[in-house]
């Protein structure tokens, strides 16, 4: 049975993982974090969150928001901190 219009008017909004992922991206970008470099996508039955952030504290903050926004979903995270070492070689441009 199609339940598209089964809910009461003014009831809870649909909570499919796609919308929740979109809301997560919105919150990461526009909130205090200002984080545009973390990408979340629905893959199979889970959500994959990837990206590189400037500090361990920033990563902790991102992961806390992910837990809040995607609670109850199967989430895999791979958020790493930027590498700040000197390069070990140069590129020769012709």
């Amino acid at each position, binding site marked *: 049975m199609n339940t598209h219009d089964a809910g009461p008017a003014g009831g809870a909004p649909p909570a499919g993982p796609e919308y929740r992922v979109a809301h997560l991206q919105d919150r990461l970008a526009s909130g205090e974090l200002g984080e545009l470099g973390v990408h979340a996508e629905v893959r199979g039955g889970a959500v994959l969150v990837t990206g590189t952030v400037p500090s361990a504290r920033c990563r902790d903050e991102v992961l806390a928001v992910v837990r809040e926004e995607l609670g109850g979903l199967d989430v895999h995270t791979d958020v790493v901190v930027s590498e700040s070492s000197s*390069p070990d070689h140069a590129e020769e441009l012709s």
Partner: protein
Amino acid sequence: MIRVAAVGDIHMGPDTRGVLRPAFDTLPDCADVLLLAGDLTRHGTTDEARVVADEIRGLGVPVVAVLGNHDHHDDRQDEVSGLLRDAGAHVLEGEATVLSVGDARVGVAGTKGFGGGFVGASAGEFGEPVMKEFVRVSRRCADGLRTALERLAEEDCDVRIALTHYSPVPETLAGEPPEIYPFLGSYLLAEAIDTAGADLAVHGHAHAGSEHGMTTGGVKVRNVAQPVIGRAFHVYHLPLRERVGADAGTPAG
């Protein structure tokens, strides 16, 4: 040969104070100039800009920067630029600077740039005022870059570099979702680079992109966003063009 160090998207704030300085202190041994390709702060606050300023002050190599979209977020871009200039950086927006490296003259033209997309999938100056303004901003940035590069051509530079935050080409965005390419760069920047000429184009902004690309006109493009290069900076060795003509090298005027 000119040794160009470059990085973008360092997104500094109080919690990353001093993180890049040990690597930056090695610059005089491996580079002649450091280019900063925008998004130097997280939110564009003056507190964050002071962290960046301290990180680059007294480095021993000249520093040339453009701002990124993050550096505009707090609407204090002029103050951010001022703090970086106080620390010795050249901050460019539709402008150029010429640096002396030994006997060579290195010209850098810079703009933040903006979005709009690439050939075949680009925004047009049509419809709602906000849509038209979006495209006009991108066009103004590209025009500023072209004018600055043309000025460098008149100033007898041995090497000319285009420095932007947004990307001039789609190749260096590979890895990002194609749907967001129009928010990551504009072909107008590449057209400006190819029209005026340059030896290298450097940009940031696309954290999940790729390092290497090229404009239609054959100018090498490098995405130096820190998450892409995985280092505090990358170094590119640029050959000096041979001067042609008996009086080449004589300063004009």
